[in-house]
């Protein structure tokens, strides 16, 4: 009996100690981990839409669309955030597109992925992603899938490359999205209210970015 009690107590205290120390560390590191994610996204946005100073978010079906304005409120582009199923899980990416038709890609970045290190993980590299630049939806096909295609798949990672290529193409060909873009570029006079409403959602300006960075240096 005594021995059993000792076993239970030792195991209990070891677990208790570990739970307490882990929850303490979790609380300590959580803000830093979340900030890393935000900073990464902000950094990517800056890279693919360098002119943009203000972002306005709206939801078109399940795609997150952000209209980008420069500091004198000119529309400079759209940021589209979407995801697709890759080889080993979800690939989350963000692309910036032009403000004229047919829609052209002006920048693309992969935010999160779970692909094989050394193979599928190469989708994050410039060598693959730079092929998308200044392409329209008809050109965004793998070279091995269609003769008009302009995208070279990563060797050894065809599934990943095909998934992201097809997903980007479908995104650009999405009808509802195209209508949304058209409406933003040439707003109909009948519905100024609608446009105005969407524009109120300004959530990240360069000031917030600077304040985050200041916090980090502190």
């Amino acid at each position, binding site marked *: 009996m005594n021995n059993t009690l000792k076993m239970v107590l*030792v195991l209990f205290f070891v677990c208790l100690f570990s739970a307490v120390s882990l929850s303490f*560390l979790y609380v300590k590191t959580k803000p830093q981990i979340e900030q890393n994610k935000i900073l990464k996204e902000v950094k990517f946005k800056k890279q693919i839409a360098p002119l943009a100073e203000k972002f306005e978010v709206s939801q078109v079906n399940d795609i997150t669309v952000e209209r980008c304005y420069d500091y004198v409120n000119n529309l400079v582009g759209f940021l589209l955030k979407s995801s697709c199923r890759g080889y080993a899980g979800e690939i989350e990416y963000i692309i910036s597109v032009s403000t004229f038709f047919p829609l052209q890609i002006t920048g693309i970045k992969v935010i999160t992925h779970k692909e094989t290190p050394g193979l599928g*993980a190469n989708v994050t590299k410039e060598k693959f992603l730079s092929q998308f630049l200044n392409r329209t939806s008809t050109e965004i096909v793998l070279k091995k899938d269609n003769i008009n295609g302009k995208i070279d798949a990563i060797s050894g990672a065809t599934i990943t490359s095909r998934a992201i290529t097809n997903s980007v193409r479908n995104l650009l060909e999405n009808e509802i999205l195209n209508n949304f873009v058209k409406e933003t570029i040439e707003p109909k006079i009948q519905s100024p209210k609608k446009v105005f409403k969407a524009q109120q959602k300004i959530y990240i300006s360069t000031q917030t970015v600077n304040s985050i960075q200041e916090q980090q240096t502190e």
Partner: protein
Amino acid sequence: MKKVIQVFINGLIKENPVLIMMIGLCPFLACSTSANDAVGMGLAATFVLTCSNIIVSLIRKIVPKEVRIPVFIVIIATFTTIVDYLIKAYFPALSESLGVFIPLIVVNCIILARAEAFASKNNVFLSLIDGLGMGAGFFVAIVLLGIIRQFFGSATVFSSKELFSNPAVIMILPPGGFLAAGVVITIVKYIENKLTNKKPTSNLPEGCEGCALKSRCTELLNK
């Protein structure tokens, strides 16, 4: 002092966990696709190994024999999670490339083996040294394999500059891991045999000496 050095060298060379004792092969193969990942994994595993060795050695006298394995695993899991959080928070780039492998340090056999075989029987200081030595042994082995695989598989070492064109992609894939590991272990065994001047002590075929089924095979051979 002599014993301290002996324990450290034991872990690093004489009883190198991966190359001589053949434990901890899973992270050795999985995390050696590039030298950078290998360094990260080696350091993380060394940290967990050393810390768990210290704690296990500290509480070795109050832990009943029957529950020692659960206690060891809880301790190891705690330190692994600590490493996971710290890497996520302060080394986001490393956490992206190592990602799923960090939580798997929990099941790294080296760590449990050292807790069971060394730390639960020796004092705190020696356990610390043993953790560092074994960790160093693991680190050296995995970084060596990482460099070899990255060099042949993606033609780069520690950087993104390609040294030659058309690298052999298979070296990054799992089969390449086995190939490279096999070659490295063969060379190490060859050197070990040369140095210790081992002579076959029995008429068993080479490599059968340490096998658990040795007696059975001998029966069959003799028939």
